[in-house]
């Protein structure tokens, strides 16, 4: 449940989302950064390069590479020797990393990477949706989604802390909507150095690559032992569930800001209808909910902050007694005619005593704007489901039929 966040306006500044993230990375004192510029992530790595050139990130190496594949591969080495390692990417860059993403998770390297979420080709499209990171959901990376630039800035420090926890040791993607958050100017409190030094202790992994004490990472595993590696990775992800929640609370105690742990809730207390969504669309939904609440529509929001590990229990607790659940996805699992959040939500409800209708909408693909009117229309659909049941389980919104 949301904890009250009081923002001190005196401490806030108006900066671009990308700057806020780059600054947060600087404050977290990384030892190695490697990234390849790609729209709309570019401003993040430009700002980091400036910090490097100005000597503002001491004890850090910025490794220039020729591709995203190389960027993440370089970090496999650096993280394995015990260096706090960071990258940022999006879309095709993230897809190019696909193979390495598994390696990072398999070797239990707590790399943190910002994903400035963007659609994937073809057709080429540089605008926002969640297809890039959602398509990497099985790689073993923790995935957190932010609603505004304050949250993604704060999430950067949280991500290192979660990933580097000895019971977790899994990498983390902090996901921010490309352009919508990466290029927006809005007020925030920049991540504070002094508090962060206390919140995030230096990275001291139990095992590192060390020529004096040789070890092998990611070596051959035959059928006798491979399953056990996979089991331990899954166990680490389950451990991360608690760690994500604890870290958000600890962050709140020290910084006074909280945007949810695994999930967040908004006006859910007496809600008949719950909307589930991730990312920057959360803000727009909150405005719609306030408007509809004035008309006595009992609607609330369940913000999914952690998509991996999937917060099944936290979600079930919120939707147990509601009348309709509406899931919004900025992605599609082709051949399933549904978005990933919708599919996962439905799957965790099966074999339980919860019997609530769930409908899904695929929206905002390739940067198509989601105005308040689209959300209002969806909520009126949900009211219809309350009255007369599900007619269409999962569908595209704002589809231009005349172009099809």
């Amino acid at each position, binding site marked *: 449940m949301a904890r009250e966040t009081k*923002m001190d*306006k005196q401490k*806030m500044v*108006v900066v*671009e989302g990308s700057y806020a993230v780059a600054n947060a990375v600087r404050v977290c004192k990384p030892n190695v950064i490697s990234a390849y510029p790609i729209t*709309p992530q570019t401003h993040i790595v430009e700002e980091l390069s400036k910090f490097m050139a100005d000597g503002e990130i001491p004890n850090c190496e910025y490794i220039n590479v020729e591709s995203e594949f190389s960027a993440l591969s370089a970090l496999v080495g650096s993280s394995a020797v015990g260096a706090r390692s960071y990258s940022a990417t999006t879309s095709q860059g993230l897809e190019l990393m696909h193979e390495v993403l598994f390696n990072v998770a398999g070797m239990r390297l707590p790399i943190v990477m910002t994903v400035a979420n963007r659609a994937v080709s073809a057709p080429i499209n*540089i*605008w926002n949706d969640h297809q890039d990171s959602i398509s990497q959901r099985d790689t073993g990376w923790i995935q957190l989604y932010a609603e*505004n630039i304050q949250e993604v800035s704060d999430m950067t420090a949280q991500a290192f802390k979660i990933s580097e926890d000895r019971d977790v040791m899994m990498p983390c993607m902090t996901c921010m*909507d490309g*352009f*919508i958050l990466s*290029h*927006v*100017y*809005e*007020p925030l409190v920049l991540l504070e150095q002094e508090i962060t030094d206390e919140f995030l202790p230096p990275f001291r992994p139990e095992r590192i690559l060390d020529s004096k004490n040789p070890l092998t990472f990611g070596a051959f595993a035959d059928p006798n032992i491979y399953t056990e590696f996979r089991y331990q990775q899954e166990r680490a992800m389950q451990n991360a569930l608690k760690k994500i929640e604890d870290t958000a609370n600890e962050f709140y105690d020290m910084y006074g800001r909280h945007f949810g742990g695994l999930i967040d809730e908004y006006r859910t207390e007496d809600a008949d209808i719950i909307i589930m969504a991730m990312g*920057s*669309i*959360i*803000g*727009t939904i*909150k*405005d719609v909910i306030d408007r509809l609440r004035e008309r006595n529509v009992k609607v609330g929001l369940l913000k999914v902050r952690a998509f991996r590990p999937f917060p099944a229990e936290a979600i079930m607790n919120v939707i147990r007694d509601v009348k309709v659940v509406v899931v919004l996805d900025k992605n599609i699992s082709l051949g399933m005619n549904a978005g990933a959040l919708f599919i996962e939500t439905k799957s965790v409800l099966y074999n339980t005593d919860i019997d609530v209708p769930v409908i899904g909408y695929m929206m905002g693909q390739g*940067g198509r*704007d*989601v*105005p*308040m009117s689209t959300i209002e229309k969806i909520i009126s659909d949900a009211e219809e489901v309350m009255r007369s049941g599900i007619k269409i389980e999962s569908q595209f919104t704002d589809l231009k039929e005349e172009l099809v």
Partner: protein
Amino acid sequence: MKEIRIHGRGGQGSVTAAELLAVAAFADGKFSQAFPAFGVERRGAPVQAFTRISDAPIRLRSQIYKPDYVIVQDPTLLESVDVASGLKDDGTLIINSDFDPETFKLDTKAKIMTVNATKIALDIIGMPIVNTVLLGAFAGATGEIRPESIMGAVRERFPGKVGERNAQAIMKAYEMMEGQK
């Protein structure tokens, strides 16, 4: 909440103007949000940038469809772009032009104002860069923001002589528009 749309051509600093407006509004004690119409950053092409200003924190992330104010940096845009699109009836449209407002026959009930920002920019800044000048005009025409806050934001972004000259031009445009209200 007040919503502002800035029309310009790629290279004219529309996005910078929107950002400076957000910085200035926050300095005035408001909350603000600025964002570009993404992905059209070609020199000379019509571009748009947006700013929201509000007393409360801004959560809305959709594009702006019904602006309270529109700023047009280049009057030749009127030939190809519907700059008055969605503009509220009680809104204001500010055009960089040496013509009288009545010259512009636009499909809007909103108030149309003109300011020769190019001349002010050439006279004071020495270059035909009008984005900051128009922010001064915006402050004078609407009263939504203090000119000092805009000058402060511009000085911070462009330290030294450049910022000073811009600040002078902002004040000049502000005074001209204030007088017309």
